[in-house]
């Protein structure tokens, strides 16, 4: 960004299939918003402004996953317009909760929701931005951490790499001095395999981590699945735990599939029901 030292970086915000929450994080930075608008030239942010200026842009913030043919084309246009592309949140970095369709018959799902399915054009899968175009920075989370978004923008202004955590939620949980739910309360928790960034909020509320920041680098999901099974957790419960807001990202995806195979094998062996009656649901629960 050196050659543009005297020019404010031009920024644009684009939305694909998502809830709007990640781009709302920018507006939720109430204390920094006006400073941000001084430091950056916000040229395209439809949720906030009716001033929509054409690219190219220095930075594109992209929220949401790719679920339609039109969006699969549009993301290539966005990539061509932007020097740096930042994928925001679980939808953009993993396909989001809507990637649950990837295991199902989308036609049947559309018929379940819409009375005139013929009006709906959708892809069979929900996929992350990086499946379609190169992504420069990925911010995890459902939603992203506002602080990590501000850190990333500050880093881009300074021309340095953003300082993003690469360790697990367990580290944040320990820093907060919280008792381990998995060991101490037998509560299913994805903390050991989930990337930090949220501040270990859920364990702080006495519930297991549901993995909304997605898998950390080199997460050993296989070991966690084995450990949960040893604790007597039914395979179906483990499948649901892994098939959440980052269901489609490796190794949550492979771990969930593995657990599904194990659950099917248990069932074939006549081992118990598939429901949650005697076992805990994902996210800590009714036990």
């Amino acid at each position, binding site marked *: 960004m050196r050659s543009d030292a005297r020019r404010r970086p031009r920024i644009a915000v684009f939305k694909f299939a998502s809830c709007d929450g990640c781009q*709302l994080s920018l507006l*939720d930075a109430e204390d920094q918003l006006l400073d941000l608008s001084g430091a950056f030239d916000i040229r395209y942010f439809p949720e906030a402004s*009716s001033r929509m200026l054409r690219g190219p842009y220095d930075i594109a913030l992209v929220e949401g996953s790719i679920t339609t043919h039109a969006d699969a084309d549009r993301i290539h246009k966005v990539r061509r317009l932007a020097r740096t592309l930042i994928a925001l949140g679980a939808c953009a970095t993993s396909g989001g909760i809507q990637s649950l369709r990837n295991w199902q018959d989308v036609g049947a799902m559309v018929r379940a929701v819409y009375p005139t399915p013929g009006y709906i054009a959708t892809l069979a899968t929900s996929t992350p931005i990086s499946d379609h175009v190169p992504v420069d920075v990925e911010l995890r989370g459902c939603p992203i951490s506002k602080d990590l978004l501000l850190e990333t923008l500050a880093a881009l202004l300074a021309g340095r790499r953003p300082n993003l955590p690469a360790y697990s939620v367990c580290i944040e949980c320990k820093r907060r001095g919280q008792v381990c739910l998995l060991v101490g309360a037998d509560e299913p928790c994805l903390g050991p395999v989930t990337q930090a960034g949220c501040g270990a909020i859920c364990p702080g*509320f006495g519930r297991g981590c549901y993995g909304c920041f997605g898998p950390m680098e080199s997460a050993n999901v296989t070991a966690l699945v084995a450990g949960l099974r040893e604790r007597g957790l039914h395979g179906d419960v483990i499948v649901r735990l892994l098939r959440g807001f980052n269901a489609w990202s490796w190794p949550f995806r492979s771990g969930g599939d593995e657990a599904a195979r194990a659950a099917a094998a248990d069932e074939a062996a006549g081992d118990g029901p598939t*429901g949650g009656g005697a076992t805990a649901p994902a996210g800590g629960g009714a036990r």
Partner: protein
Amino acid sequence: MTRPRTVTVDLLARVEGEGGIHIRMEGREVAEARVRIFEPPRLFEAFLRGRHFMEVPDIVARICGICPVAYQMSSIHALEAILGVTVHPGVRALRRLLYCAEWIESHALHVYMLHAPDFLEYPDAIAMARDHPGVVAQGLELKKTGNDLMTLIGGREIHPVSACVGGFYKVPETAALRAFAARLRRARAIAVDTALWARALQFPDFDQDHEMVALRHPDEYPLNEGRVVSSRALDIAVDEYEDHFVERHAAWSNALHSSVRSRGAYVVGPLARYNLNFDRLGPVVRDLARECGALPPLTNPFKGIVVRALELVWACDEALSIIAAWEPPPEPRVRCAPRAGAGRACTEAPRGILFHYYALDDAELVTAARIVPPTAQNLRSMEEDLTRIAPRYATAPLDELARRCEQAVRNYDPCISCATHALTVTVERRPA
């Protein structure tokens, strides 16, 4: 001028999610007015099947980053109806407090950042801040107060993690809640200023005869429960909702359009709530309403900004009284014994009633789900308003016409992420 003209103004700005407006004019008449929703369908109702009931509030929160609490609340109440759960009054109070926090955050966002720029003719709140720094600073402080209260109760402002079927995973420290009262008192003062500021805005003369639908509670301004009532004498239990409201699927939309059976378009949201529950607002807010010249019936959708400001005052007051009377429940949540069945609930999201239906099997898993968000219920009324507003600007420059049409849609604070998703304004003009 004999050549037909088609003009496209891009994406509808300052709404949540992506959609468009298409208006075809023949001379001074509107031949067709459509709110197009091209936000991609995410199919929540389909993938909820087979999920455990405890997962539902966290999953449905992801329908909308602006009003996740509304989704959590409607789902929790519907599921508790199936499971036969009765919660402690402390849990009920904390749910109302969490909901007040979301109303404050969401209404402040709409009033100051999405809607005010329409009235003051700025592209956005940031540009507005150059000429009206005090106004924007107030709006941001109000919004931050709502968000910080959400964080205090729910761990974060977007997709909070504390609410669950049966109560809360954990309730906040009493001292922390009490300490927050000072922030709310400041927010309340800002909300009063907001109402007095909003009343002085210029409103087009645009009274509409929409049927208004809201919840009504025996003693409270509606939030978590009540009967579904309308300005045309509808008065039903939430369980009867599906007998009286129908959804239609239009070819131009990825959202379903709702209507009152055998009547048609209706309006939900602040205006409807206010008109149908003015007597529940309490004397102080009612006096302020009088001072703002905003006594019901208020039928001009452009005045929604005044009503949102009055609801901001109410939400701050309500939050303050909940905190003043706060006594933590003996247990944060009650455990739910499994029970198969079906249940419904309606709560007042910031944008209006949000209906949820679920069926559970005896393994505690969801077998069916149906969600009717407020924006889907308002779509037909938005289209009717477009039909009536566009002719007034038939001869105006096209950008003026498009701007007025956009504003008419923004009156409803549409949340397209909720209704499914992108708004493009297309104005097509043909000679009569």
